[in-house]
């Protein structure tokens, strides 16, 4: 009996090894270096912009000597009849082409190719979807009272009618724009022109998809964006005319809602990137694979069509 207890104690001591062990990296298949291409085109563009970068093996050695960005690629876009080459903008680190050279038209399919001197070549295609108009913007306000102060918050959401006969994918956005005319500071004796202000609306993130929406299971119905906070104004409790403060604080304020009718690869790619980042490094969550329509590479080349609706705030 005694011997048994001793051997048990020995076993317990023996058990105190580490439960975290480094694994030989060779059990992972090496991904190799791939070209990563990102470009999104729409008829509303003024400048076509494409980013070319490279992937690195997951278990790479620390040297960041090789940068992610690829600066020596040849990037072209074609609509089937003519080919336009992009120019590299080394300040912004993007490949750019003027829309004048290659107008983007609804219904047209475009082919993007990128190649590097070391022989890597990738290509992708995208077709521009139809525009979908925004039907209405809804403006809500809520008043919260804390102590003597009242806080009035304005929120918007907007709706649109989903075309019934096709599968659609959307991204919605918006911004608040106003003229900051009251506060101008004379610089060098000269009064500066009024500074315009832009505030990008933060929509409540749909937990699964960010600002993306597909008409899956709601084909042809009236779709709604999440709501976004536009402005919050504090007023004294005794002052009932909160609304006037808006025009005072945000003169000439208007909300611009934007609806992007995107192609499927845009939706799948953006959605997956969003979800992969949301899952983070948790080993218990299912990893999110990021699909790519770049043949021979990674990333996304997609097309969308944007519509806008303006709501002046009074």
């Amino acid at each position, binding site marked *: 009996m005694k011997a048994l207890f001793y051997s*048990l104690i020995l076993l317990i001591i023996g058990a105190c090894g580490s439960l975290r062990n480094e694994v030989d990296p060779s059990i992972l298949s090496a991904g190799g270096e*791939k070209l*990563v291409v990102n470009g*999104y085109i729409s008829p509303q563009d003024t400048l076509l912009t494409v980013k070319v970068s490279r992937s690195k093996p997951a278990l790479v050695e620390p040297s960041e000597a090789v940068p992610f960005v690829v600066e020596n690629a040849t990037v072209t876009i074609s609509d089937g009849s003519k080919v336009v080459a992009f120019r590299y903008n080394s300040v912004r680190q993007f490949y750019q082409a003027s829309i004048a050279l290659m107008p983007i038209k609804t219904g047209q399919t475009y082919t993007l190719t990128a190649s590097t001197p070391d022989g890597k070549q990738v290509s992708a295609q995208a077709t521009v979807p139809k525009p979908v108009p925004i039907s209405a913007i809804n403006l809500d306000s809520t008043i919260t009272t804390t102590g003597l102060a009242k806080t009035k918050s304005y929120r918007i*959401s907007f709706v649109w009618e989903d075309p019934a006969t096709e599968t659609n994918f959307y991204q919605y956005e918006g911004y608040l724009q106003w003229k900051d005319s009251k506060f101008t500071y004379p610089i060098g004796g000269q009064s500066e022109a009024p500074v315009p202000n832009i505030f990008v609306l933060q929509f409540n993130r749909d937990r*699964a998809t960010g600002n993306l929406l597909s008409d899956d299971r709601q084909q042809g119905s009236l779709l709604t964006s999440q709501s976004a906070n536009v402005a919050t104004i504090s007023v004294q409790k005794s002052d009932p005319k909160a609304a006037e403060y808006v025009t005072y604080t945000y003169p000439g304020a208007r909300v611009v809602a934007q609806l992007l009718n995107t192609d499927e690869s845009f939706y799948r790619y953006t959605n997956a990137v969003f979800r992969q980042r949301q899952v983070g490094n948790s080993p218990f969550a299912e990893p999110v694979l990021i699909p790519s329509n770049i043949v021979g590479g*990674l990333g996304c080349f997609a097309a969308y069509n944007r519509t806008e609706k303006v709501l002046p705030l009074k």
Partner: protein
Amino acid sequence: MRHVLCFLIGWLLLSPALAQLPNRFTISGYIHEAGTREALLGATIRVANRPVGTQTNTFGFFSITLPAADSVTLVFSLVGYGPQTRTVSLRQNQVLSVDLMPGQQLNEVVISEKRGQDPVSDSPQMSQIDLPIAQIKKIPALLGEKDVLKVLQLMPGVQKGSEGQSGLYVRGGGPDQNLIVLDDAVVYNASHLFGFFSVFNGDALKSVELTKGGFPARFGGRLSSVLDLTMKDGARDKLHGEVGIGLIASRILVEGPLSKPQPGRPSRSSFIISARRTYLDIVAAPIIKAQTNGETAAGYYFYDLNAKLNYDLGPRDRVYVSGYFGRDKFYANDNTNGTSVGLGWGNATGTLRWNHQFSQKLFANTSLIFSNYQFDIAANQLIDSQNRFVLEYTSGIRDFSIKHDLDFYPAPNHALRFGGQLTAHRFTPSAIVLQNNSLANIRREVDQIDVLEGGIYAEDTWKPDDHWRINGGLRLSSFTGAGVAYVRPEPRISMGYLLRPDLSLKASYALMNQYVHLLSNTGIGLPTDLWVPTTELVKPQQAQQVAVGLAKDFAAGGTFTKGLALTVEGYYKRMDNIINYREGASFLLIDDPTSARRVRWEDNVTVGRGWSYGAEVLLQKKEGRFSGWVGYTLSWTQWQFAELNGGRPFYPRYDRRHDISVVGMYDLSPRITLSATWVYGTGQALTVPTARYRAYGLSNGVDYTRNDQGNVTNVQSTLYTNTGVRDYGPEKNTFRAEPYHRLDLGMQLHRKRPTHESVWEFSAYNAYNRRNPFFYNIESKKQLNNQPDVTVLYKYSVFPIVPSVSYSYKF
């Protein structure tokens, strides 16, 4: 529908006709354990020297109808009990009550594919596993906590998930596809401590039976398996008790007659009550308190309680009341800032059963059943002197059922069963109360959903001649509620053909429907797993399975071959409309309170299909001092979901090509039992990054230019970067983890006295200290001499060698 009804009516009319044949008499009765008078299920009744026989049902009842004879010899037997022989004159119907003596410890028999000394080759049933509880207690277990589900994982066709988890993966199906019933009541979450232990306390169980294919018509409701657990009735002779002390939990059991038995007349009633509780929290409480100056109390515990009571109303009637209640609780309270957090979950079940014997050939059972599973999160935090944040989240499912079953034995070669069940489910996918003084009170409830699930069935076990063994039947399942209604027929057939008296070929087909679904986003037995009904958007799951097999009993003569049996089975299973969480979806159905849109759980799931095929070999030694088995499974499982892996098929995490288990028990002497198990399994199919890159997205931030007047024009979306995006390669789950293997060793020291018995048990889980992978993670690792960090792959394991000791005392 009409054909089905005609078939059923025809069957019912025909069967009594068979029974009306002249000059036949019926012998019926009950088989009990001698002493405790516990009813014995699955005991075999055979006519000596003839291939005619039957078995007792769940309540120990049997009935056999034979041609008139001056003398008929019947042999009554059951694994672990000494056989008994009775010779009766068959000139009129007979009622026989037989008590079997529990066998010697040394003669006890290990897990058998079919209970009783009924050879595996003689039954049409295939793909069924029975676990005698006495054997579960011999097999070494993690921390000494004997676990029914983990022993089942050692059988071919049944696999474990991650290390230490009690969930069952049966023939390519997930833990959501198993129907787990305890005394007719469905147990919705069989996990304690996040799946490391199952809720079943072996002390209170009488039998455990798992069916993984060839389902008889009486079973329905899940795709992959039915795990039928029966609680002990309680001893009728005198008060018995058992106390067990282990490293993490203690157990107590008391059973006995309710009224004092008279000499020669056993008590008409008995009870059993058993309880188990962990005591980690009690041990840890003073330490936590001391370290936080008494400000913090935190802990975790689980307990479960089983109770059963039965009463003989008369020779033909008996009632049973049984219940289970279990709960896991995690809590943390901090007095300094008035914060308290709690997490709790548990099942409660209750069953009221009434046995009635209409005649010697017709036995009925009626059950009223209640089952409830609930999961709660509660958080309460003082934000400042005036404001308090309160969150209460509840999800769960509650059932009320009525079930009626009839067993009818018209002739020795027919055993009919028919009956039906109706269940009212109430689902509470989520109910949230959020209270925050600075916001208004928010109460958001996803509506409770009430649905009705039903099933009627008829089946016959038919032995037309000396070669054929057939179990055929039909189940009609139905579901109404949540805006949908279904009635679906489910044909079932199992056949055996005896090539030789000890060798048979078998084949079976079963179609199963599943109307309730489990949303589980981890594959680990978390309490957050959510049961949901079939709706307009989510169709019932359906599986079809065919299996063929061979069963061979070896000669009883040789020492080594005594009780040795071999079964080989091959199966193909197809599953449709199975559901899974979409990638990145979240379990807590908490939506944006300010949004007009409500979160629907349906939006978080994706529907797909799966298929699994493989072969299973089981070689068992059922009797003798040395007993045990060797199991091998070769299988392939694939899934295909519209929104996973780009719609292409992939191997799910628990696809396991090879699975081996070796279990051995050896009675060295009446005082010492040695046992060992060794398992091997192909590594899990995982998704591991192969590369990383920067993904540039289209910003919902804006890029704009200004014109000469300073007005903003040309508002454009811009490219923005997401760093650290991982590339997992084009296909999901292409990385295979290292194989899993483990050896467990156990030793039991028995001390028997006329009035009591004590057992010391020593065991070592993972005896050779294998570092089995639990998960892999990519992390950066610091380097010496200010070198930049490197990125490396780490393997995490859960259990090194875990020795344990436990003690139990029984009177």
